[in-house]
C-alpha cells in the first residue's frame, strides 16, 4: 500500500488537479475521473460516484449487486487502454455510454489518464454499439425484465451529444491538460532539485563522516584527548546533519507500507545517537518484548526517521550525568491490543503542560519554552515530523512530562518526559473510490 508523502507538492498538486477537474465538469456538465501512474500502474485518484452529475444510468447499475465492481473494472480497463495509447481515445463503457480517455504526458512519459463523459453520441453506428453493450450488461448482471426495461429507459435518457459537440469539448480539454502539465512538471522539478541537493550534501558528508571516524578510531598520532574530542564532535555533527538532510528528502517521499519488525529500526536509532549520548554521559537502554514475533505494517524510511527524531530529542534534552547518578534514555516496547507500544523516556529538560495540552509541541517550527541555552538547538521540525509520520500510520503519539523533585539541578528543573507511541500492526485497507 502506498500514499502520498508529507510534502507540500503532492497533496497540493492533487488539490489543484481536483479543482481543475471540477471546473471542467461544471463547464461541460460531464463527470470526470483521474487515474495516476504510480510505479507503472494506474491508481484511481479522483472520481466521485456520489456526484449528481453522474448519469442515473450509472448510479442505477452501481446499486445492483455486482454492478459497482463491473463498473470499476471497466473504468480501469479503459484507463489502461489510454495509458498505452499515443493519443486520446473514444471508449465505450461496458454498459453502453461513451467516454473520452486522455493520457496526460509530462516530459514524454504518461503520468495520468483522465476519463470523462458518460454520454450518448448521435448517429446510428454509435447507437448500435451502445445497445450491444447494454444487452451484454443486462446478461452479466442477470437482470429481470423490469430492471432491464428501467436500465434501457435510463440509457436512452442519458445526455446525447453530436460528434461536433464532442469535438468542441475535446478542444476545451487541452486547456485543462496544459495546467496538469504545468503542475506535474513543477512537482518533478522540485523533487528532482531536492534529490540533487540531498545527493550532493550526502556525498560531501560521506567524506566528512569517514574522515572524522578515521581520526577518532584509526590514527594513532592523535594522542591528545582534546584532539580526539574535536574529531568526535565533527563526527557527531556530521551524523546529525545527515539525519537532517534525510528528513528533507523524506518530506517529499511517498509512503510505502510493508510488514517489518520494528526492533531493528529502534536499534538503528540507538546506533545513530549512541555516541552523542555517551558524550553526554547518557546510556540508551532498550527493552523490547515480542517485537520479533509480530511485524508491523510500516513505511520503513518514514518510521526510521520518526524514531530517530524522538530518540535524538531524548538524548539532546537529557541532563548530563552528575552527582554520581547514572543517566539514561529508556526505550520500552510491548504489544497491547492490536498495537505495538513504544515508550521513550528521558530525564532532563521538560515540556510545559500547556504546550502538551494545546498540541503546540507537535507544531511545525515550535521550540519548547523550557529549552534554553545549549538545549535550544533544534529547528522545531523533528517532533512535528514524527507526529505526522505516526498519524500517517494510523497510530497515536502521547507525551507526558512531570517534574521529578523540587531540587533544582545545575542544568535546571529535572523532568521525566515520556513519549508513548501506539502503532497498529496492520494499516486499514484503502476504500476503493466509486466512479
Amino acid at each position, binding site marked *: 500500500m502506498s500514499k502520498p508523502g508529507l510534502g507540500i507538492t503532492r497533496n497540493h498538486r492533487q488539490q489543484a488537479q481536483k479543482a481543475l477537474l471540477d471546473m471542467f465538469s461544471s463547464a461541460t456538465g460531464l463527470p470526470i475521473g483521474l487515474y495516476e501512474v504510480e*510505479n507503472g500502474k494506474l491508481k484511481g485518484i479522483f472520481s466521485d460516484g456520489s456526484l449528481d452529475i453522474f448519469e442515473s444510468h450509472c448510479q442505477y447499475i452501481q446499486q445492483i449487486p455486482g454492478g459497482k465492481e463491473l463498473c470499476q473494472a471497466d473504468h480501469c480497463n479503459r484507463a489502461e487502454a489510454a495509458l498505452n495509447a499515443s493519443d486520446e481515445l473514444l471508449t465505450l463503457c461496458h454498459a453502453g455510454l461513451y467516454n473520452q480517455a486522455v493520457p496526460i504526458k509530462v516530459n514524454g512519459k504518461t503520468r495520468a489518464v483522465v476519463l470523462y463523459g458518460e454520454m450518448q453520441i448521435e448517429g446510428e453506428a454509435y447507437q448500435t454499439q451502445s445497445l450491444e453493450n447494454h444487452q451484454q450488461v443486462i446478461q452479466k448482471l442477470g437482470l429481470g425484465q423490469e430492471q432491464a426495461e428501467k436500465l434501457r429507459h435510463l440509457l436512452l435518457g442519458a445526455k446525447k451529444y453530436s460528434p461536433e459537440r464532442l469535438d468542441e469539448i475535446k478542444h476545451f480539454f487541452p486547456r485543462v491538460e496544459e495546467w496538469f502539465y504545468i503542475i506535474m512538471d513543477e512537482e518533478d522539478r522540485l523533487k*528532482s532539485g531536492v*534529490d*540533487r541537493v*540531498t*545527493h550532493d550534501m*550526502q*556525498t*560531501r*558528508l*560521506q*567524506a*566528512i*563522516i*569517514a*574522515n572524522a*571516524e*578515521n581520526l577518532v*578510531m*584509526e590514527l594513532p598520532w592523535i594522542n591528545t584527548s582534546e584532539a580526539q574530542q574535536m574529531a568526535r564532535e565533527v*563526527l557527531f555533527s*556530521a*551524523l546529525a546533519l*545527515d539525519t537532517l538532510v*534525510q528528513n528533507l528528502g523524506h518530506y517529499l*517521499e511517498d509512503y*510505502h507500507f*510493508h510488514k517489518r519488525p520494528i526492533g531493528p529500526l529502534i536499534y538503528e536509532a540507538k546506533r545513530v545517537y549512541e555516541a552523542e549520548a555517551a558524550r553526554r554521559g547518557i546510556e540508551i537502554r532498550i527493552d523490547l518484548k515480542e517485537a520479533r514475533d509480530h511485524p508491523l505494517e510500516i*513505511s*520503513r*524510511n518514514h518510521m526510521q526517521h520518526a524514531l530517530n527524531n524522538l530518540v535524538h530529542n531524548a538524548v539532546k534534552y537529557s541532563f548530563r550525568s552528575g552527582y554520581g547518578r547514572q543517566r539514561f534514555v529508556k526505550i520500552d516496547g510491548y504489544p497491547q491490543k492490536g498495537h505495538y507500544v513504544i515508550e521513550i523516556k528521558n530525564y532532563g529538560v521538560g515540556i510545559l503542560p500547556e504546550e502538551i495540552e494545546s498540541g503546540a509541541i507537535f507544531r511545525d517550527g515550535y521550540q519548547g519554552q523550557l529549552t534554553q541555552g545549549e538545549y535550544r538547538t533544534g529547528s522545531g521540525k523533528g517532533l512535528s515530523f514524527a507526529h505526522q509520520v505516526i498519524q500517517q500510520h494510523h497510530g497515536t503519539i502521547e507525551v507526558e512530562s512531570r517534574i521529578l523533585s523540587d531540587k533544582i539541578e545545575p542544568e535546571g528543573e529535572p523532568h521525566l518526559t515520556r513519549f508513548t507511541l501506539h502503532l497498529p500492526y496492520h494499516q486499514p485497507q484503502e476504500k476503493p473510490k466509486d466512479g
Partner: protein
Amino acid sequence: MAKKIVWIEDDVDIIGPVVRPLERAGFEIVRLRTAKEVFDNVAKLHEADLILLDMLLPDGGSGLELGRYTGLDIFKELLQNHALKTPVVALTVVAREEIRKNLRDLGVADIVRKPVRPSELKERIEQVLKD
C-alpha cells in the same frame, strides 16, 4: 589470503577515506570508476569475493530516477549477460523503498545507505562474506 573487493564508485572524495580503513583491515580493494570500466573488466568481478556497487555512475544519466538508475542497470546486465555470482552490496544515497525493493528483488546481498561510517561498512562487508 586477503579478500578482494571490487568497488565500483566514481567519487574520489568518498572512496579515499573509506578505503584506507578497509585496506588496513586486510581487504584488497580494486577500484572501477565508470560503467565502461566495469564492462571492460568483467573478469575482475568474477574473481572478486565481493562487489561494492554505487548506484550513480558518471556515464549513465542522473541515477535519481528509477528509469535511469545506472547501478541497477549495471547489476541487471551483469546478472543476465555475464552470469555474475559474486555477492553485490549496493551503495546508495537514495534510500527510497521502491529502489530498495528493486535491488532486493534482483538479489543484492545488502543495501548500504551513503553516507556510511567506515566501521559500519566493514561490519556489513564481513557479514556478507560470512553468509
